[in-house]
């Protein structure tokens, strides 16, 4: 089963990391994800720009375009991984491994439809 790992984090904290701290987190995660990639289990991984760059389109009779993210919460969606996991238990273990020593929150969501090339 393909799972999406939605990485939610307090953006103010992530933004206050120095370049070195940021690089260290990425390097630490990479040590886990490279194993997943080697096993052919890692799908696309995405890191989003800060929510200050977000635009929200709220549909209705007159669609409204708003500056900012959908939800103005402390913890924002900052990125996600798609990882092939044998079970939910396996997915939870994987999340623990990726996020080790971090304050990140992972929301694990099974993927219903995945079109890597955007094909119809």
């Amino acid at each position: 089963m393909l799972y999406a790992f939605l990485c939610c984090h307090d953006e103010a904290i992530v933004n206050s990391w120095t370049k070195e701290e940021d690089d260290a987190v990425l390097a630490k995660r990479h040590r886990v994800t490279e194993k997943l990639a080697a096993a052919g289990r890692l799908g696309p991984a995405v890191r989003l720009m800060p929510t200050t760059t977000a635009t929200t389109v709220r549909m209705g009779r007159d669609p409204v375009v708003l500056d900012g993210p959908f939800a103005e919460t402390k913890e924002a969606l900052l990125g996600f991984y798609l990882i092939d996991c044998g079970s939910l238990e396996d997915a939870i273990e994987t999340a623990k491994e990726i996020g080790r020593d971090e304050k990140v929150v992972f929301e694990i969501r099974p993927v219903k439809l995945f079109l890597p090339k955007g094909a119809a």
Partner: protein
Amino acid sequence: MTDLAWIDPLLRSARPQALGALVRYFRDLDRAEEAFQEASLRALTHWPQNGPPRDPTAWLVLVGRNVGLDEARRGKKREPLPGDEAISDLDDAESNIAERLDNSHYRDDVLRLLFICCHPDLPAVQQIALALRVVCGLTVKEIARAFLISESAMEQRITRAKSKVANADVPFEAPGAIERAERLGAVAAMIYLVFNEGYSASGGEAHLRVALCEEAIRLARLLLTLFPAEPEIMGLTALLLFQHARAAARFDADGEIVLLDDQDRSRWDRDMIAEGHALLEKVARHRQPGSYQIQAAIAGVHAHAARPQDTDWSEIDQHYATLERLQPSPVVTLNRAVAVSKTQGPAAALALIEPLAGVLGGYFHFFGLRGALLAQLGRLDEARIAFDRAIALAHTPAEAAHIRMHLDRLMRDGEIWKSRQKNRAGDGGAPRSFSV
């Protein structure tokens, strides 16, 4: 858990909002700072035991308010607040409180805190020092090192600044729309000052100044999170990102300034540039041009060019023309002249800046550009005089060194120039930009 390193970023990122709320409660900066300090100390003992609270900011505000009230109790009956032990657990009390300290309050709290630092009676350096100390929470030592002055001198400077703002009447009610806009404008200018303080420095201590640029970007992003639809705050954030993206390429190994044209563009930070462009795209939809947006757009054109010769100078010229209309200033015209020299040649640019000789008679960049344009036109003796004047007006050794390099080039190329002039009327060599 023995490693407390994880707490520091939590305290740092909570600081502007928590301190801002405490200033609203106590209506006194010193008392609020003491309360925040005490709350932070308690966090260091409570959080490792109980885990971080769900909302560290709300926790710090409550504990800080509690501490402050305890200390200030003057026999007056006040509504008792829960002890910090009671709220340090992840219980309902905390989430209720967190809801009450909602975003709309935080917005104006942070804005007020920043606004207090922009008191018009404070000279720029004091505004910067105060903001770094109060809002960003840098230590006096860190700020003193960035300013290359002694710790005690910086301590004095901050104390003086604080006593000035203590006497200023900053209203504590939620500001109206016009007042909020005025505060935003003043705060944006102050953030830009913080950035420039870090950006314009050079020499061995440059790495310390980089921290000021990073703090300014953090403040701009914070402000934009709180006011997500303010075009000028988007513009400011984009501008700072574009400028800071070049940080690694702006100085050589000896700490000398490397001009935009000579920078190794592979060392520019692509993430920051992409974020700047994303913000510019967003802000364009508002159709409310402002000076930060235009300056960001200009920086964006530079950032977009893979090589100096790919720079779209006519677009830059247009942006400067808009800026001249919006905010006429001789310095803007001077900058526009650089673009004009690229699109129409040095003679047109020189004609544009000659009328500025009076107002910019003491301005380093005026003589730097004038010298460069004259050199391109082959008027070498006049160029030398302008460069000499620029060196006399330089603020930093790096600026002076940079002009000396031009002078050396002039001397070296002088003979070549003279022979070339015989064959070709002066359309100049590669014009050089003075913006770095």
